């Protein structure tokens, strides 16, 4: 009996998803404008959970279903590359890699409508060796190594210390860069990997 209810529930949520999907596909090309807050975003932010017991700006584990707002990938599938941006209200946006993070920081409002860089409270990247969260400001990034990122292209693996980064460089090549440097400007070959400008928000 219980199982039957469970199945019913699953069916219902499937229908909901289907309904939302239909509504999405039907209402897109230039049709009636949607109400402003009904934006259907591929990668919604995840809200802070006060019962989690951690502070609002502490790094959180990546949910399996979280998507990167820049490229659409699932950050949980490449955990040693994952990054996260936490806003002042506790909402978090997970990203698949440091490269996507710096592309995101260049245009926060494009990828998370209604948000800006000034509302960011904390930024974390993953230590390439251990997967542990590091404050992006403190992390040491390596550009130009032979290691391919989640998108099988160049990326910016992050490390907890210069010594770790140097050990990596001895094996894989590349050079050290700070978050401050990368925040100002990405190397041209990485900037070229930025996704097309394509407005995913509805007409207003």
């Amino acid at each position, binding site marked *: 009996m219980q199982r039957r209810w469970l199945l019913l529930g699953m069916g219902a949520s499937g229908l909901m998803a289907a309904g*939302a999907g239909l509504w999405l596909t039907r209402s897109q090309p230039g049709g009636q404008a949607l109400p402003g807050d009904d934006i259907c975003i591929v990668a919604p932010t995840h809200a802070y959970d006060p019962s989690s017991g951690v502070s609002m700006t502490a790094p959180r584990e990546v949910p399996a279903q979280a998507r990167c707002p820049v490229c659409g990938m699932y950050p949980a599938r490449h955990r040693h590359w994952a990054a996260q941006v936490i806003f002042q209200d506790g909402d978090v946006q997970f990203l698949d890699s440091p490269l996507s993070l710096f592309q995101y920081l260049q245009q926060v409002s494009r990828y998370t409508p209604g948000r800006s860089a000034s509302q960011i409270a904390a930024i974390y990247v993953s230590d390439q060796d251990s997967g542990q969260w590091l404050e992006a400001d403190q992390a040491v990034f390596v550009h130009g190594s032979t290691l391919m990122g989640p998108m099988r292209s160049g990326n910016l693996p992050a490390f907890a210390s210069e010594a770790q980064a140097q050990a990596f460089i001895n094996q894989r090549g590349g050079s050290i860069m700070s978050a401050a440097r990368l925040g100002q400007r990405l190397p041209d070959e990485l900037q070229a990997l930025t996704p097309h400008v394509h407005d995913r928000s509805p007409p207003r």
Partner: protein
Amino acid sequence: MTLSQNHSAGRRRFLCGCAGLAGLSAIALAGCSRDTDGYQSQAPLEIDPHASCSLDGMLLADFPGPKGQIHYVQDRQIDWFCDTVELLSSLVAPEQVRAVKAAWVQDMAKADWDRPKGRWIDARQAWYVLGSQRKGSMGPTAASFASEADAKAFASTHGGQVHRYADIKPEMVDLTGGALHDTRM
């Protein structure tokens, strides 16, 4: 995904998340009530802005290089691929047991490399250039062409080797870059 996980995010966002996650299945699901429309047909679909790669979630419309789609016999859901290496890897893998109704890639002699639209051709009749200088959404890619002449012309400009579909072996489109084999040795 459960409601409780997204509880504080609100129901609307939950719905949106589902639609996003379901991504392409939206189109396939739309066929549920009208089998004669989408499901029976194996015609290639066009990439919509929310179409996501079935392997990694990447948004197809935002990245350069040839894309792909596989339609299965037993499955209403179409699998999208942000890159042809991923599609070929899925198609020629010995583990691939789902009966394929149709597989489509894009003719890059006619489609714009940076924003390919339409120009769908049968993936199993196509010619591919592996190892060229041109990069797809996932780095090194397999440029796809309807004709051998176009594939050769591309290879003479951008480098790489021309292969017909039948000659593509799983190890030529290995997504792991050989790392799995390394650990076995």
